[in-house]
């Protein structure tokens, strides 16, 4: 058992965990933040993407100990109160989700892509950058459109936060 502490969605949290505990299990099971999903056991699907110190990471690949002292943002921490983050709003607007299971990971990844490329993003780059995220429902068409729309809108500044 080790004690870990971190900031999750702006709140300081800590917990006693087994050394083998993954960040995603800590978020889902200890903190009850079930928005971050688990779709695989091989770091292939991206359903578990969260931000660690502002960068996208796969929460199923990190031991929670590796996140000790960091700042984590999960899908639950993205909206400002009732106001959706531009990426969340764009996924709605462009019908970038169906069953919604891959969606938290897709949105967190989308935010990270826009943070890194800003308005330089084009379709091909988005498709390439989404290599680590699988969606079985949407055929990606509308996910790509949603991310593209955010990159090319005035919401970019906020989206990159």
């Amino acid at each position, binding site marked *: 058992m080790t004690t870990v502490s971190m900031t999750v969605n702006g709140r300081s949290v800590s917990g006693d965990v087994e050394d083998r505990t993954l960040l995603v299990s800590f978020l889902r099971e200890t903190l009850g933040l079930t928005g971050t999903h688990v779709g695989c056991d091989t770091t292939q699907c991206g359903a578990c993407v969260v931000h660690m110190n502002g960068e996208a990471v796969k929460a199923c690949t990190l031991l929670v100990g590796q996140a000790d002292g960091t700042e984590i943002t999960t899908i639950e921490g993205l909206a400002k109160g009732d106001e959706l983050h531009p990426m969340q709003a764009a996924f709605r607007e462009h019908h970038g989700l*169906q069953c919604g299971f891959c969606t938290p990971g897709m949105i967190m990844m989308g935010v990270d892509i826009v943070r890194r490329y800003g308005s330089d993003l084009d379709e091909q780059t988005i498709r390439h950058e989404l290599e680590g995220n699988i969606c079985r429902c949407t055929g990606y068409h509308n996910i790509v459109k949603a991310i593209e729309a955010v990159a090319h809108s005035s919401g970019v500044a906020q989206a990159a936060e």
Partner: protein
Amino acid sequence: MGAEGFGARLMRKEDRRFVTGRGRYTDDIGLKDMTHGVFVRSPHAHAKIRSIDTSEAEKMPGVVGVLTGHDLAADKLGGLICGWMIHSKDGSPMKAGAHPALAADTVRYVGDAVAIVIAETRDQARDAAEAVAVDYEELPAVIDPAKAMDSGAPQIHPEAESNLIYDWTIGDEEATNAQFSNAAHVTSIDLINNRLVPNAMEPRAAIGSYDPAEEHFTLYNTSQNPHVARLVLSAFVGVAPEHKLRVIAPDVGGGFGSKIFIYPEETTCLWASKKIGGRPVKWVADRTEAFLTDAHGRDHVTKAELALDAEHRILGLRVRTIANLGAYMSTFSSSVPTYLYATLLSGQYAIPQIFAEVLAVYTNTTPVDAYRGAGRPEATFVVERLMETAAREVGLDPAEFRRKNFVRSFPHQTPVIMAYDAGDYEASLSAALEAADYAGFPARKAEAESRGKKRGIGLSCYIEACGIAPSQAVGSLGAGVGLWESAEVRVNPVGTIEVLTGTHSHGQSHETTFAQIINDRFGVPTDTVSIVHGDTDKVQFGMGTYGSRSAAVGLSAVYKALDKVEAKAKKIAAHLMEASEDDIVLENGTFQVAGTDKTLGFHEVALAAYTAHNLPEGMEPGLKETSFYDPTNFTFPAGSYVCEVEIDPDTGKTTIVQFVAADDFGRIINPMIVEGQVHGGLAQGIGQALLEGCVYEADTGQLITASFQDYCMPRADDLPSFKVMTTETVCPGNPLGVKGCGEAGAIGSPPALINALTDALGTNELSMPASPEKVWRALRSASSAAAA
């Protein structure tokens, strides 16, 4: 069309919870005192279980219990069933082997469950599962369905000699053969429809919970049809009595067919919860478990022939298919290669005679059942590969050849049961060809050649039968259930509306489209409507969602209930406004006496129904109606797809440069949602054609493609942006005129893509998935054949 009603591109009501991480999937649910179950699964494809030693596991930290197949058998639980009876051509019933939820004596595929370990945490259960010692006596395994029928092949179930489950036929063999003997040209083709893993992103999960005080069971599971799960679990498996079992399917993260079926884990978690004294037992599949145990799709080996007359009209079609059903018969598996497949072999074409023979075979592989399209993609692949091949052989343009043979008058009775009700195949073909600039293809091909690339274009004109029904008809074809749907519409005293439906949404947007229909009828805003589904305690009964039946059947049931609500509300309104019932019109949420300015709001009539201070003589208070709707026929969506590819001859890499889909889904409730459904279907069909496929090791029966590292799922970079459009012939069979759109993309796209590839390569020898290596090899052999 109103801003929110029929035809409106309304944003989805369900999105807010999903984009904010507030969805409630089975694994998100935690119950008081919950335990975690992990299954011990067979590492062998075929083996006898000599013994299972659980003593070490029981001593491990946190372990609450270990239960085996013998415990299950001792409690006399029934096995899982296949609910669709098929008879062989000699009249004998299909040979279904026993399928216990936990194997006690024999395991038949890698992943077959033999025990469940229950512990305080999932990790503890996993650790202890490693400590369960199973002594297996390995038996020879067989993977290939053709070899499974050989004499001397290992027998998988004692009931099925030569592993043959049934040998079934449809159509008039003699008449079809006669057509072939009169043919001017015969095209023959050998095809493999590759085995796929549905791979919904949410892995299957179940929580079984037994309340000893009430002797009541609750199952939370990832299900497309919770009521049918309750029916099977109570009536056949016998794990709980029907009135003491509640099945809740909360948010479900995709299904594509794989979550229709009743799986061993659901039985086991419910039963285990009782065995350990009533603590809930949660099981969540990891991805490899999903690869091993979710019912797979497709897996056909087919020989097909098409007979043409001298004018290139089709005279007849002959098909022989071997269908691999895996190690056990899954819930609906027998219907897929028979009534969902062979009955669609007429495609969009007027074919005078068709004869098909289907041999269903056991092998030591994961059970196979319906996957997006279920039988129809397999049928379309046969028909559309044959059409393209025949056109090339006789030197006709493939579009022209199809046109020449289209069904042009409706209703049209095919020789294989189906009676197509409406369609305009020419319209969707023309729309697709125009959008794809088919006429400009030769110039694009020449341009590509100048860059050293190979270009090809391929077509596919599919038809499918959706909204499977009527109950009497499916009953006569062997179905163990009726395929109607139920609905209840509850208008609350303040005028808000709850719609209870027996369908289930796992991405199809029912919360939105169903509310749009209420808006269309009653003029109430969609945000005052809520859709209730997925809970057997709330909804009286339902048949769930699959085969694109939710709109055509489920929403039609809602529509029928709305008729009743409207009729009663009009009576109340007429009474309150002292007018004749016939003079009441309902428009934009207001009841009006026609030709006067007397009006009552929808909510006022709702309130009057419940205050009941002034109702027509003898009327019961309240405004709530139910309906059970049984359609008169299937619906028949159809469409034309055009795929254009470019191949890099150095690497064999295929790029889809254009994909056009023109579909006829009848009337469309929400175009945005329909387009999304088509996109998703296309991705799955393109996945099948280019990337996906199960690989089993021949001798050991190990599934080599058992993770996302080994099984190639389509990613964003593998796919193009799609051009999708619709044409419309109204479906005459239901009050909404809708047909169903969920499966089309997966049905129409594989042949279009393979036809495009074979066009580019100049050879017909190409199997799915057309990996770069296969394409490269095909190119090599085509050019050496040309040189020879």
